[in-house]
């Protein structure tokens, strides 16, 4: 055994040495390439009559030239131009040789940690050899050490969960400020209580069983293949709990999504349309109705493709932000111009995807104005925010719209200041299109006749 271990150890050391040499070699070869690049580069630089460039910058340029070999994206640029100008431009994004050194040090650090672990492993092996010489067991003690670690993991883990609940949970959870949000919060809290109890109990069982029933040389496990009563209990108990959760959840869900026709009529209708990476908010104007959109009518002026043949659209207003009155039901009609987006207001417990070619809706009633929320939060810059919650491209992480909840008077006052979609320019465009349509109609008629 000892021989095997020994030869293994030797193998480890040799491998470590080889890897180390390899790394060192690479570092050296890097330098060689660097200097080569430097030589070429200096030559080019001299040719371009910029001999004043100091050695250090030339070295930096050399690094870039060397890079462009390894960096795929940079390679074509260097290949196509290949002049001093290119080199000069390249040196704009020069990579400091220090970067390679840092990387090398990082790799070295990891390598050293590995060697350290290997050394500790050797020490443990020597310890085990002495144990074996003293006639003590060499596998069980190490295995059962893990049983103690499980107890430690349990204690620290439970404390960690507690700490996380208090600390992270405290900063994460804000009570909903909508009517339906309160019932979601209730469900959330009930579920959290159930889950936490189950999490703690099962983990105490899992890790304590691991500790208590760790292997003992003389003990034999208890042959206990099944117990139908127990199995029935732990089928029926979760099933009952889940039934309660399901029913509760189902009715909550229905109450949120199943809005009666009267309730729909009462609510203020607001349209939100997403596109990469912005939202457009459309208020219905005096008639309370939002005009139809047709994506084929989209022009630079008419970004939403509003169909002005529908007279409901003539008084639609463009909202600079989402402003809604407190304690009044609002119904959002959610759409998308291009790809999927998602209309998500965390504080309101509101989320609905924006789907191109399909209208989706979410109706809710806010119960707290922004001012009240700020006072409650004790943060006078706090704002509700609507954010995109469906991957939509490079700007996905910043596709937002401020949401303000205000009193009814403030809402009316604000709304009066919002511009109409149907501007002068659009009117002209619309009339023009009408005219051409009429001409075409006339032509068609003439042909038919």
């Amino acid at each position, binding site marked *: 055994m000892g021989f095997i271990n020994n030869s293994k150890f030797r193998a480890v050391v040799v491998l470590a040495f080889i890897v180390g040499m390899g790394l060192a070699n690479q570092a050296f070869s890097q330098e060689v390439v660097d200097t080569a690049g430097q030589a070429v580069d200096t030559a080019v630089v001299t040719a371009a009559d910029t001999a004043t460039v100091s050695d250090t910058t030339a070295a930096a340029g050399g690094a870039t030239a060397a890079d462009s070999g390894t960096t795929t994206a940079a390679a074509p640029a260097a290949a196509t131009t290949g002049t001093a100008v290119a080199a000069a431009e390249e040196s704009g994004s020069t990579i400091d040789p220090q970067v390679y050194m840092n990387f090398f040090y990082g790799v070295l650090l990891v390598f050293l940690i590995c060697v350290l672990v290997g050394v500790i492993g050797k020490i443990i092996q020597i310890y085990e050899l002495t144990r074996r010489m003293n006639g003590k067991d060499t596998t069980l003690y190490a295995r059962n050490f893990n049983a103690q670690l499980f107890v430690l993991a349990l204690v620290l883990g439970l404390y960690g969960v507690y700490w996380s609940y208090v600390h992270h949970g405290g900063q994460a959870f804000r009570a909903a400020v909508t009517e339906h949000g309160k019932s979601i919060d209730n469900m959330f809290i009930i579920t959290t209580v159930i889950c936490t109890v189950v999490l703690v109990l099962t983990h105490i069982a899992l890790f304590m069983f691991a500790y208590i029933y760790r292997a*003992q040389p003389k003990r034999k496990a208890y042959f206990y293949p099944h117990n139908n009563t127990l199995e029935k209990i732990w089928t029926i108990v979760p099933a009952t709990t889940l039934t309660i959760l399901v029913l509760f959840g189902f009715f909550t869900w229905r109450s949120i999504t199943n809005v009666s026709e009267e309730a729909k009529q009462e609510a203020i209708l607001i349209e939100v349309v997403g596109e990469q990476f912005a939202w457009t908010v459309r208020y219905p104007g005096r008639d309370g109705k939002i005009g139809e959109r047709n994506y084929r009518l989209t022009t630079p002026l008419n970004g939403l493709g509003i169909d002005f043949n529908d007279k409901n659209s003539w008084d639609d207003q463009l909202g600079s932000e989402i402003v809604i009155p407190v304690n009044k039901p609002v119904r959002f009609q959610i759409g998308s111009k291009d790809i999927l987006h998602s209309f998500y207001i965390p504080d309101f417990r509101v989320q609905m995807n924006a789907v191109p070619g399909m209208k989706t809706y979410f109706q809710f009633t806010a119960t707290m104005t922004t001012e009240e929320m700020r006072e409650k939060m004790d943060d006078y810059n706090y704002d509700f925010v609507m954010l995109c919650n469906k991957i939509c491209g490079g700007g996905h992480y910043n596709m937002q719209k401020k949401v303000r909840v205000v009193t009814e008077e403030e809402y009316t006052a604000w709304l009066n200041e919002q511009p109409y979609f149907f501007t002068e320019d659009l009117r002209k465009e619309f009339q023009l299109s009408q005219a051409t349509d009429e001409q075409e109609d006339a032509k068609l008629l003439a042909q038919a006749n």
Partner: protein
Amino acid sequence: MSSIASAGTHGLEHHAEHGHHHESFWTKYVFSQDHKMIAKQFLITGIIMAVFALILSILFRLQLAWPDKEFPILEVLLGSKWAEGGRINPEFFLALVTIHGTIMVFFVLTAGLSGTFSNLLIPYQLGARDMASPFMNMLSYWFFLGACVVMVSSFFVESGPASAGWTVYPPLSAVPKAISGSGLGMTLWLVSMVMFIISQVLGGTNYISTILNLRTKGMDLWKMPLTIWAFFLTAIVGLLSFPVLVSAVVLLFFDRSVGTSFYLSDLVIQGQILPNEGGSPILFQHLFWFLGHPEVYIVLMPALGLTSEIISTNSRKPIFGYHAMVYSLVGITVLSFIVWGHHMFVTGMNPFLGGVFMITTLIIAVPSAVKSFNYLATLWRGNIRFTPAMMFAIGMVSFFISGGLTGLYVGNSAIDIHVHDTYFVVAHFHLVMGSASIFGMLAGVYHWYPKMFGRMMDEKLGYLHFWLTFVAAYFVFFPMHFMGIDGVPRRYYAFTEFPFMEKWMSVNVFITWSAIVAGVAQIAFLWNFFSSIRFGKVAPQNPWGANTLEWTTPVKHIHGNWPGEIPTVYRWPYDYSKPGHHEDFIPQNVPFSETMSSNLPHDFEGNPEAERIQREWELANSPQAEKETE
């Protein structure tokens, strides 16, 4: 290898070679049709892909932790297009997230897990010489490898790899103008996925037909180890659901390349009106999740099967409630097909449908709960040996519970309104299907390594690997729950644009450091894995004292697995610590006649003849009888 060893069963293969079975390097290691070699090929490919996907995850974690910092080395590694000035480009960030997810879900946890262990264990544990169709099995691996190569190659195309998320929802994935990754990279993603599905279908057909047809004498379905049950049901789920993904992928391919409008309608991309009309993006989501949700169980069930076997073996106790374990697997299999809508509660699907899907979703928690409790009951009063495999199996149970519980939040459509597509979901599935499955897989690797390579892995390194990974995984994913509750969406490139996310910046740094530790900890595994192939201690035939048939095969692999006749199976695989027997395990191929002292009435399944013999023996060997003879 002499032909005598496998004569009779493989006469056909040998007739042309006059008694000698020549294996060249190519037929042995590359184009192998031997299930053991194919398993190793799957495993090593899976490990390589896992390391690749792990590195991708570290890259985007760096971005999330230090969004304002420059890492010039990234520009060196990734090029100035994707990491100009050492800062990852937002679209490339999405590509990293996408490919990380795709590789982990499909290539590591589906092919790497099922491919490895189904191939290895189905013939071994059932007592078969090989798979039903070895050639198909080989094809399955090669299609998988091809899929891997195509997927990785998408990093080398100019427009970058697919970046629409691993769910590749159109229109984002269908319109190259919307994101550059939806150009050639997306095409490669689709091609890779089709190859992958072909591999899965070939593999799955093979697994099912082997399990149904090639069981050894005495191995009836209720004597199969839970591993086999898990692989069997997984293969069925895969065979029924993967083809649906093909249809989704093919339609998407048509939309992208032929100009159809299955998923597209009413699009104005960056001011340009597209001609597509009449399609619906929701259709894709239905098709995708019809696979996508069963896929979760395709990933999880093999891990559960491996864990059952390992926990039972190392607790030296029969698995508690074997029948209940099988029925809960069957329950999960059936239910997994009717829950897909819970991914779509807020997509604009009819809200009534959401209610229905919520009910089915929460029902699936019952069999999962039964399984967890059965694991705990198996540990109770065991004699637990903490082999590295056992550690990972315990870790798997922990993740399965902690991640499964949050399923009660996201499966509840009312709560899902709030946490859908946030970090809460990220935490949920990374624990329950990410960590739990990868721990099940690692447990399997540690446990069956002696069978695969004939050598033992180092236990101490195994412990180091376990503890670092276990703790780091919780450190990474547990805080994410709270970010989700606060409303932080997933797939955000930076948390810098929203005041309410600022408080999570420090948490992000913590998570990233934990992820780096977890990543570095895998070196312990990789070193252990690859060095033990050559330098590990030579394994004994049955190192864990296990009951299943694979441990009756010789340590050195031979073609056809068993040198002589295939052993006959007499008992279930979980006779551990049976009272009255001198050892704490009785392998499946030991007949009851050799274990008279430990037989229980239940063992004979009502066979009157056997019961009579047992009664007579007990009478003859009862303590009084002994006294009389004395």
